[in-house]
């Protein structure tokens, strides 16, 4: 090429052509410095290590997590010499690496989403008690999915479950999950719940669920969301923006549907309790009837006693009226006409005497 005379623009174009051919995409790891947001649309920073530094440039919409100076990141980029002579990495994707930077990125995004109110309790929608149609987003090859299906089948029946198979780790995973969320939200017949599940993994594996566009897609879902990612101790931004967080995929299945065995137990208990209510009611009626009968018998007894008392009194009166009692006192009963010559019958207590009237005088 030394005999070919190039203009500066041709030279820049040639360098870019060569770079594009030799290294269409490069992944470079380094530390972020001089991070700048330009006009709210563009981001520029320097990526450096101990000896070297390179300029990086990307659109804000390509950022999947906030970054700041000092964070270690990997950029996936195309190398380019721009017409002004600066060598740039045109970044297509950027992600933090290393525990500290992943954590830092998580905290920055968490603070950002929290400030926007995406975790607010009043945004949370309740899930139906017993859904009939749900959508699940997960890797159908995962153990987490197998556990979820097992628990769902053990606990409940009659549920329609549509499953969208996506990657749940690695760079393509967030976009695949976002597409699946949009797919379910675009259906004419919306599922009643959208469940996103993934088993445990390293912080890097779970970083899929700390992706800003994914968190926003979950928050924007028209279908109420239930997210169960990792183990109980793992907290991701995806489960923070979800309507309901499940500690694990198994827990998601437990939250989603009731346990038929518990319902059957409760049914039996209800029937037994209703049976007891009937028996109690019968006992109550028996008691009332018996009390009524006792009252009636008591009244009859009182009436009979009264009658006997009255009878006794009358008997006394009658006894006092008995003429024999008068005879006992020495008087006699005289029968016959009170005229001279007539025959009289005189009855004493012990004798009946015949006599003749010899005299009749007025007193």
């Amino acid at each position: 090429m030394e005999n070919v005379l190039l203009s500066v623009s041709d030279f820049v174009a040639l360098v870019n052509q060569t770079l594009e051919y030799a290294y269409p995409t490069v992944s470079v790891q380094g530390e972020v410095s001089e991070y700048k947001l330009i006009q709210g649309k563009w981001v520029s920073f320097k990526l450096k290590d101990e000896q070297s530094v390179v300029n990086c440039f990307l659109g804000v919409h390509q950022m999947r997590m906030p970054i700041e100076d000092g964070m270690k990141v990997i950029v996936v980029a195309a190398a380019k010499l721009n017409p002004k002579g600066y060598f740039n990495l045109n970044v297509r994707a950027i992600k933090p690496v290393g525990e500290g930077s992943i954590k830092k990125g998580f905290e920055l995004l968490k603070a950002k989403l929290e400030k926007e109110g995406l975790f607010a309790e009043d945004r949370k929608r309740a899930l139906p008690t017993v859904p009939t149609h749900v959508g699940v987003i997960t890797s159908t090859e995962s153990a987490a999915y197998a556990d979820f299906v097992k628990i769902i089948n053990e606990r409940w029946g009659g549920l329609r479950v549509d499953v969208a198979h996506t990657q749940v780790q690695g760079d393509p995973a967030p976009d695949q999950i976002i597409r699946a969320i949009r797919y379910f939200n675009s259906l004419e017949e919306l599922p009643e719940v959208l469940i996103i599940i993934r088993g445990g993994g390293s912080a890097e594996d779970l970083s899929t669920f700390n992706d800003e566009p994914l968190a926003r897609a979950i928050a924007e879902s028209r279908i109420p969301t239930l997210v169960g990612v990792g183990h109980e101790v793992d907290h991701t931004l995806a489960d923070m923006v979800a309507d309901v967080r499940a500690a694990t995929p198994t827990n998601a299945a437990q939250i989603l549907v009731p346990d038929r065995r518990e319902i059957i137990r409760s049914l039996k208990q209800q029937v037994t309790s209703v049976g007891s209510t009937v028996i109690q009611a019968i006992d109550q009626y028996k008691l009332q009837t018996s009390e009524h009968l006792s009252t009636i018998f008591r009244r009859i007894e009182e009436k009979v006693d009264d009658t006997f008392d009255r009878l006794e009194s009358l008997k006394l009166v009658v006894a006092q009226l008995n003429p024999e009692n008068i005879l006992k006192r020495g008087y006699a009963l005289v029968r016959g006409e009170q005229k001279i010559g007539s025959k009289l019958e005189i009855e004493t207590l012990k004798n009946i005497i015949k006599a003749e009237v010899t005299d009749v005088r007025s007193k």
Partner: protein
Amino acid sequence: MSDQNKSVQDKLGELTELVNWFQSSSFKLEDALTKFKEAEKLAENIEQDLTKLKNDIQVVKKRFDTEG
């Protein structure tokens, strides 16, 4: 709607209503035995439904690894 077509949810709702009747002012001993038998039958019916119902799990055909 015949019993065959009612969902488990509908039947659970009916059973709840029946159970509530026993605690309500409408409770009459004359009707209690009939209602109790009805509740018992319904509970058995729900138990059978719950035991035999299977979930319908389908993996959607659409692929999500690319746009569109």
